[in-house]
């Protein structure tokens, strides 16, 4: 069962996001502003934005791979 924890402002229209395999970071892509936000994930599951990058118009997907 789920319990809501809270909300965090993201990029404009966050159509896609992904979580890194180490569960330390979440990347969220804004369809309408062409930006990707990096969020640190706390032990308690809270998000803290640490950086924002321009990635070009209409980012439609984001996939984080394992480091090999």
């Amino acid at each position, binding site marked *: 069962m789920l319990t809501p924890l809270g909300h965090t402002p993201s990029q404009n229209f966050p159509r896609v*996001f992904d979580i890194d395999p180490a*569960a330390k970071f979440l990347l969220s892509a804004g369809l309408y502003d062409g930006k990707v936000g990096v969020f640190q994930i706390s032990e308690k599951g809270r998000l803290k934005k640490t950086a924002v990058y321009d990635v070009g118009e209409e980012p439609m997907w984001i996939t984080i791979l394992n480091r090999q």
Partner: protein
Amino acid sequence: MDEETGALTHQGDVSAPGRPAPIAVDPQQQFMYVARRDDLQINSYRINSSDGNLTEIGSIAIPTDPCHMAMDRTGKFLLSAHYMGARAMVHRVGNEGALEAEPADDFHTEIGAHCFQTDPSNQFAFVPHIDNRGGANAIFQFKFDEGSGKLIPNSPARVLQDKNVGPRHYCFHPSLDILYFSNEQGSSISVYDFDRNFGYLSHKQTVNNLPKDWTMFSKCSQIRIIPNGR
């Protein structure tokens, strides 16, 4: 991506014209597949394991544009869900990561097909359909034949939804028999028990996903679960 700080460094670009959208990666992370929605093509790439760079292998034509793709659990098949195409397609991975042009299955569902994955046992599959522009507003339940790549409707074939729920994407709990669905029209998350012997879903909870007093337009898209399931 810096493992400690999360900082990103731009390494380069690969040209993929025609509105590239859904991405799928095989379990060994050797190959990546990208659908070019306006061009009705799926590109295959080899992933360089040391630097993450991509080398194009080839592409195949598809009849309609997919909004979501995933690999089956073995990496032998690429699964794609086609919203307006009203279908779930399966393509076999051939030599060196290239896709076979002839689909292993082309299962016509209904408008709104938005996500297609197999369960950890690779025996079952679900295709949620949203409730917009004629969408079926239901989760279609299938058995998956991992030898042939064919879908067989399970019984019951559909998990029906209340009006304006619109299940879109889903993820599996890493250790429990539970699935979580994002609901596009409902702006909510639904929790389902998963019967691992028969592949059925049973609804157990739906939670609203909006801040209190939210009055602007909203819909739900992506859903992910932390690897430890917390």
